[in-house]
């Protein structure tokens, strides 16, 4: 009896295997039996994910029973109008090509909210502000009457306002404001003048230069100015040259002219992580002609040895 049952089970298993194999394989590779035409056709699929999930899926205007993430299988090759809808979010629409045996995967769909999440993050009036790479948690701004520089947290829950400098008489034509990497100094510049302000520290250290703000006057108009990564030097680019100023004390700045430049409207980018300055300039080539190009000036500490050799001729 047991052997009879076993034999029946065995033959059922064999039949099941041979029935399942073709059907599962055909399904796996995207084949579908078209009963009306009695032929096997190769289909494709669309797989759609959205952020947030749970969006209703419409294909050629008809609602699909799934919500995102969803796989719409056994689609005949062709172009389909796919749209997603979720309450409280803008709808999304795209025409999607379905090819035989292929899966069109749409994974980067973002549904944007119809009610933007807007919050006021500080308590005072701000008309202009600066966020520096050295301090991404706070915004720095100059008051409308140009008498104070303050900072405020960018976290809306933290509404603290911190006035860094008061009783200032800042000029109208400030071109840029910049916070040093150590967050202890701010400079701003206008015309041919750059002012360095030391941020009052809560715990002053001995021998530290405190509350001594000083000015740097250049011969020519300042085009760009950047903090060197040690926060103790400022790189100033005028329409004539590139200089580096060591901030020791008022009037005793060590000044090095790194390069003379010819471009009166030179554009520059300073990579503070590697202390490399990229800028445009017009320089004479070996052919005796002038060439406008993009230049790279490496002034990092590790490059100092070669650096000094290179700029030897430019030091005043």
């Amino acid at each position: 009896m047991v052997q009879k049952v076993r034999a029946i089970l065995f033959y059922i298993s064999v039949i099941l295997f041979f029935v399942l194999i073709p059907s599962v394989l055909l399904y796996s590779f995207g084949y579908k039996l078209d009963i009306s035409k009695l032929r096997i056709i190769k289909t494709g699929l669309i797989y759609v994910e959205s952020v947030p999930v749970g969006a209703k899926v419409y294909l050629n205007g008809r609602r699909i029973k799934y919500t995102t993430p969803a796989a719409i299988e056994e689609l005949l090759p062709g172009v389909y109008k796919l749209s997603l809808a979720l309450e409280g979010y803008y709808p999304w629409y795209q025409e999607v090509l379905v090819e035989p045996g292929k899966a069109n995967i749409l994974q980067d769909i973002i549904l944007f909210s119809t009610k933007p999440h807007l919050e006021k993050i500080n308590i005072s009036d701000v008309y202009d502000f600066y966020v520096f790479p050295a301090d991404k948690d706070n915004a720095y701004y100059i008051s409308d009457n140009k008498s104070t520089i303050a900072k405020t947290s960018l976290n809306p829950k933290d509404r603290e306002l911190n006035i860094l400098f008061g009783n200032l008489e800042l000029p109208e034509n400030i071109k840029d404001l910049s916070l040093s990497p150590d967050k202890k100094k701010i400079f701003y510049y206008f015309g041919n003048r750059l002012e360095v302000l030391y941020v009052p520290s809560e715990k002053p250290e001995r021998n530290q230069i405190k509350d001594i703000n000083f000015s740097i006057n250049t011969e020519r108009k300042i085009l760009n100015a950047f903090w060197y990564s040690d926060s103790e030097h400022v790189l100033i680019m005028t329409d004539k040259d590139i200089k580096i100023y060591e901030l020791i004390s008022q009037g005793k700045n060590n000044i090095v002219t790194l390069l003379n430049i010819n471009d009166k409207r030179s554009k520059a980018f300073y990579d503070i992580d590697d202390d490399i300055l990229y800028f445009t300039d017009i320089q004479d080539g070996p052919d005796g002609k002038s060439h406008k190009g993009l230049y790279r000036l490496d002034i990092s500490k590790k490059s100092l040895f070669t650096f000094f050799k290179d700029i030897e001729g430019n030091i005043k």
Partner: protein
Amino acid sequence: MREVFDLQKRAFEIIPAFISWSILLIFISFAFLRPKAYALIIIIFDIYWVIRLCYLTSLLTMAHHRLNQEKNKNWLSLSARLSNPQIKKIYQAIIFPVYREGLDILIPSLEAINNANYPKEKVIVVMAFEDRIKDSREKARELELRYKNSFFLFLSTFHPDGIAGEAKTKGSNATWAAKKLVNILDDKNIRYEDVIVSCFDADTCVEREYFGCLLYHFLTVEKPLQCSYQPIPVYNNNIWYAPSFARVVEISSSYFELIDGVRLEKFVTFSSHSMSFKTLVDVDYWPVDKVSDDSLIFWKAYLHYNADYRVIPMYITVSMDVAHGRNLFHTLVVQYRQKRRWAWGIEVFPYVMANFRNNTLIPFNKKFRKVFQILDSHVSWATYAMILTVISPIAMLVNSYAFRGAVIGYNLAKITGVLFSLTNITVILWMVLSFTLLPPKPKELKFRAWIKLVTQWLFIPIVMPLIGSTPALDAQTRLALGKYMGFTYTEKKRDSS
């Protein structure tokens, strides 16, 4: 003397490993070089595996049902009702090959025989010690004091080292003991036909009705001398104290024995088994130079009787120890070594092949089936778990890029998931069945021991390749390389310490 190189023997030794490694390398090659072809192969393999698993689980359920039906039978009275005059003549001889097992292991085994529902004046117990183990004689004295008058005969034999042609195996020790028993049976004028011999591992504890069941089958089967009698080994002696993963392995081993008990044509002797003493003598005892004496004795008899020999499943359990060590890692090592020794059963393949070549009386189709069955069981053992739990997931992960943008990439994961869920259903069934085989929970263990019995099945995906396929591959590779294994003692540990 230098051994003569036997090309044919070496070829037969290489074949199993060659097939196993080829299957694995084919899967790996396709997985990384032809991802779409691999997807096709793996789907076919997965379907095959799930159907096979469902089929085997059905057989297990049938076998389990029969085990439950027969466990409360009073086999001795059933035998008495047969009115067979031979019943009064039958002796039960039990040989216990002992290696390093202590009295804490041996006494429970002997107590189980002492408590068995069988006339003790018809029971012969032979404790087969190894002479090279220094406390053997001390243990023998202790046991003789205890059991000298408990049975018809209680003997201790001491197998000496260095007999020509012998290896240090359990089979050589059991054979030495059987030969000693021959002299005693001759002295007492007991016919070999009237003795049923059982060769038990030292930790084997029989059920109360074991010998009655054995007697009943012996008296009722056709050609009783041309049969071996195989009980269902369970590993209940210390199962509540063994680590979870070791329990899963041993329960699975018991299940495969139950399943094979239904597949009679594939059923061979394993571990503790019984047979006619006359047959044992006729086939020249257990092999003395091979590790797998338990299965080889079947093949010796099969060849001796020109394929007119079979194994009769007995739906009664014999309980042994779960192999476990001092700690989790040591248990893993002990389990690995034990399973490698079991997988070393592949050494029957060259033996069977060589003997089939010389035997013209066994029909070719029978030979072919047997050879296929040996290879099928050992190659499946070495490869399936590796493909399912190691190669397949890695290939899916690596090929996720290759499959991207193809319907098969999406569907393969989906189909594999469905098939995996089906596999889980069978695992749940295995778990439920395992509860009915368990001995009562020791009182000192808390309720969480039951929880462990459920959660232990989560180890299946780790246990399958680690203590399933890997030791089998290891054993086959060693055989292929001619690095022959010797007998390795499996540590026995009863308490929870």
